[in-house]
C-alpha cells in the first residue's frame, strides 16, 4: 500500500490504514472512501500523507536491490541453508516488481 502525499489524494481512493489523531483515536476508519470534503478535512488536520489501498513499488530499481543482496550474502555463499534463504529473498524482491 503506497503512502500518498495529501496534495495527490483524489476522491474515490480508499484509506488502507485508519487515520489516527495524536492520542491514537480513530478519525477515519480503514477502508474509508475519500471525497473532496474528506480530503480537505485531512488537509486541515495537518497530515502530510496517508496510506491508500493498492500496490506500492519499491523506490529503488530492481538491479540495485539484487546486487545489494549478492553483496550481503558474500560471506555465506557456501552454506546450503543460507542458499535457501537467499533464494527466497531473491524471489521475493523479484515479485515486488511484477
Amino acid at each position, binding site marked *: 500500500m503506497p503512502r500518498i502525499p495529501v496534495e495527490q489524494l483524489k476522491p474515490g481512493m480508499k484509506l488502507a*490504514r485508519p487515520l*489516527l489523531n495524536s492520542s491514537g483515536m480513530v478519525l477515519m476508519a480503514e477502508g474509508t472512501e475519500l471525497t473532496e470534503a474528506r480530503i480537505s478535512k485531512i488537509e486541515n488536520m495537518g497530515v502530510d500523507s496517508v496510506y491508500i489501498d493498492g500496490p506500492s513499488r519499491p523506490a529503488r530499481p530492481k538491479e540495485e536491490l539484487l546486487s545489494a543482496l549478492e553483496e550481503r550474502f558474500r560471506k555465506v555463499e557456501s552454506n546450503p541453508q543460507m542458499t535457501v534463504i537467499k533464494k*527466497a529473498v531473491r524471489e521475493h524482491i523479484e515479485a515486488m516488481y511484477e
Partner: protein
Amino acid sequence: MSNMDPRTLRIRVENISTIPTIPSVLKQLSAIIEHPKISLNEISHFVSQDPALTTKVLQMVNSALYGFPGRISSVNHAVMLLGLNVVKGLLLSVSVFEIMHKAMIGLREHSIGVAVASKVLARKKGLKEPEEVFVAGLLHDVGKVILTLVWPEEYDRTVKEAEASGIAIFEAERSRFSETHAAVAGWLAEKWHFPRKLCECIANHHRPQISSLAPLETALVHAADVLVKARGIGYSGDSLVPEVNPGAWETLALGEADLREVLKELEDSVEQTAEEFRA
C-alpha cells in the same frame, strides 16, 4: 579500553539509572518496572502521566502489528489487552525507539523487522503467546542502545571496526567490551523482572542452542534476525548476513512457502510501523 572487566561492565549496565547520559524517561521507566510486584494499574498510571509515552503506547497497540488497529483508545485498555509482560517490553521499546534512531540509524527499522518476523514465525509454529516473541524481537538489540548510551565513543569505534574487518558486530563488541549487546540486554531484562523466557530469547539470540527454557522462542528470534538482515531491512551494525544456526534452522523446519509469507508480511508492516514512529 579493550578487555574491560565483565563485572564492571555488568555493574555499569545494571545501574543505568545513575548514568548521566541516560534519558530521563528511561530512568523513570527503569525505576518503575524494577519493582517485581508492579501492578497493571501502577503501570497504567505511570504511562498516563506522560503524554508522549501515552501517545507512543497507543500508536503501537493501534498499529497493524498488534491486530487491533485503531480500536484501543486508553492506556488502561491497552494494558489489560496486552498483559503486564508485553506492556513492560513495549514501554521499554517505545522509550528507546528515539534513542535507538540516534544511536544507530536503521536500528529501529531492524528491530521492528525482527519483531514482525518473530511474531509471524511464532504464529506459524503455533506458539500461544506470539506477542511475547514480538517483544523479544523488538528488544533483542536493545543492548546496542545501552552500550551506545554508556560508552558512545567506544561503541562508535566498535561499529567501525566490525565494518572495516567484516566481522560480526557482536564479535567486535566482545573484543572491546568483553561481552556482547545480547548479554547486556539480557542482564537488564533480568533486572527488570522480564519473564525468564523473554530474557533467554534476548540474551541468546546469537546462540539459540544454549537456551533451556525457551529454545523454540530463541530460535525464532534468531531466525527472524537472520531473515531481516537477509532482506536488508534497517541497519544493525552488520552489513553482511550472518550464518543461521544450523540446529535452530532445522528445528524450525521452514519451507519455501513459509519464507515467502514471512518476507511478505515483513515488507508490508515494517514500512508502516517505521513511518509511524518517525515522529
